[in-house]
């Protein structure tokens, strides 16, 4: 992991309570503790109309998500389609953009909102939302950290799907930077091998890396070079 990722992961681990698996709940707590924000939430989103709250650090965060789901607008509702962070340091100034959401959000106690998509290429699993009770932008350090929080939230959601977040010593995987392309290629190959979506394929790839104690990039390399195949035990290259 990169230096910043190590730091943020340590924060999340420190915010982890009890024996429960490391979860996005710990991530949300850590974000509130370490970033200059008053609340954090993670929402799983599989389409603009299918949103499922995963956790919220406080009541205001939960209500902000509820408003966006109900009204179909807001920084985290646009976000999903645009694929880039939505940073709103002063909600009052964008009331015209989201005429339903902004007054409700301000009345609930939010004055600034920052939404980060949890995304890797075509895989889109949700949104990390941060809010502040007073207007003001995220500092550069906080912004850089928030991007890492989002990256880890993506991994936690995917890994929770295969149950490996419950394993002792769990931590987010990261391939060597040069191996990144192969990770995404391997994901595509596995999706065809198993006849599943890319999300599911990515989950399986990560679970395999974790279970075998191998770096994600190395497992991906094996798949791309056809030394490792997922699912039905056909000989490599034997089917067209």
């Amino acid at each position: 992991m990169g230096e910043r990722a190590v730091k943020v992961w340590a924060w999340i681990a420190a915010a982890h309570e009890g024996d429960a698996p490391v979860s996005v709940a710990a991530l949300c707590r850590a974000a509130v503790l370490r970033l200059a924000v008053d609340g954090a939430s993670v929402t799983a989103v599989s389409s603009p109309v299918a949103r499922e709250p995963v956790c919220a650090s406080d009541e205001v965060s939960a209500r902000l998500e509820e408003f966006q789901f109900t009204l179909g607008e807001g920084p985290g509702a646009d976000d999903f389609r645009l694929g880039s962070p939505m940073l709103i340091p002063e909600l009052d100034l964008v009331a015209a953009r989201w005429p339903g959401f902004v007054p409700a959000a301000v009345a609930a106690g939010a004055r600034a909102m920052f939404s980060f998509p949890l995304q890797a290429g075509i895989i889109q699993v949700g949104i990390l939302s941060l809010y502040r009770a007073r207007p003001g932008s995220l500092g550069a350090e906080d912004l850089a950290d928030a991007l890492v929080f989002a990256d880890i939230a993506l991994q936690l959601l995917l890994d929770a799907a295969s149950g490996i977040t419950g394993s002792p010593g769990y931590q987010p995987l990261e391939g060597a930077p040069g191996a990144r392309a192969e990770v995404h290629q391997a994901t595509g190959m596995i999706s065809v091998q198993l006849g599943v979506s890319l999300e599911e394929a990515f989950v399986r790839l990560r679970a395999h890396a974790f279970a075998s104690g191998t770096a994600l990039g190395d497992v991906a390399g094996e798949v791309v070079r056809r030394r490792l195949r997922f699912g039905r035990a056909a000989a490599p290259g034997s089917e067209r």
Partner: protein
Amino acid sequence: MVTSVDERLAQTFVELADTLVAGFDLMEFLQTLTERCVELLEVDAAGLLLADGRGALRLVAASTEQARVVELFQLQNDEGPCVDCFRSGQPVIIGDISAGNVVARWPRFGPAALEMGFAGVHAIPMRLRDQVIGTLNLFRSAPDGLDEPVARAARALVDVATIGILQERAVRQQELVAAQLQAALHSRVMIEQAKGVLAERQQVTPDEAFLILRRYARDHNRPLTALAGDVIHGITDISPGSQATTRPAPHGDPENSPGPASGPRS
């Protein structure tokens, strides 16, 4: 030095022109542009902002995470050399970001850029006559400006890019460009995923899969990123035997998405 820059620049022009022929893909083109800027122009990072359909600036490409943060930070605060460059249509060149007058002019941008390790910035407008469509921003970690031959090369690259984008906009609907912007920053990952899908379906290597994708995009005049998405979703069949059959899209979301992301809220 000068010759070397010119030679590499000439190669880059050929490469960019290549991207401009049939199968033009805006995201692919812009990502290539930022990568070549870093290789050619002795800068440490590059970022590219483009105005969307509503005239708001969006980050569409960044060569490093630090550049991404600094660009997003400027957009968030509506303040900084890249924002000024877009508004004025003039280059904004800051040799030393830590200088007092720079911090006075952009009290929030200055400290943020320094924090991310940048000491100089060179923001170049992407413009054709009156129309400013975005900015290309070059960041350096050392506080000194670009040599004149390098600065000239940067302007030439930006001009080529601008013409390419405006041609694209003239040919296609404005909405399509806005739609393509949605894929910003994720197009490369999506293309890698599509390479894997195709490699497995046709039992070829990912590199061969890319050539097949690219050839198909050109033959059918389709943007590469859009084609990548269709291949992943199984909408477009580009296997050698099939004659470019396009099946109707499978309905809705994949049924196999993992637990937390699947299904509407109950």
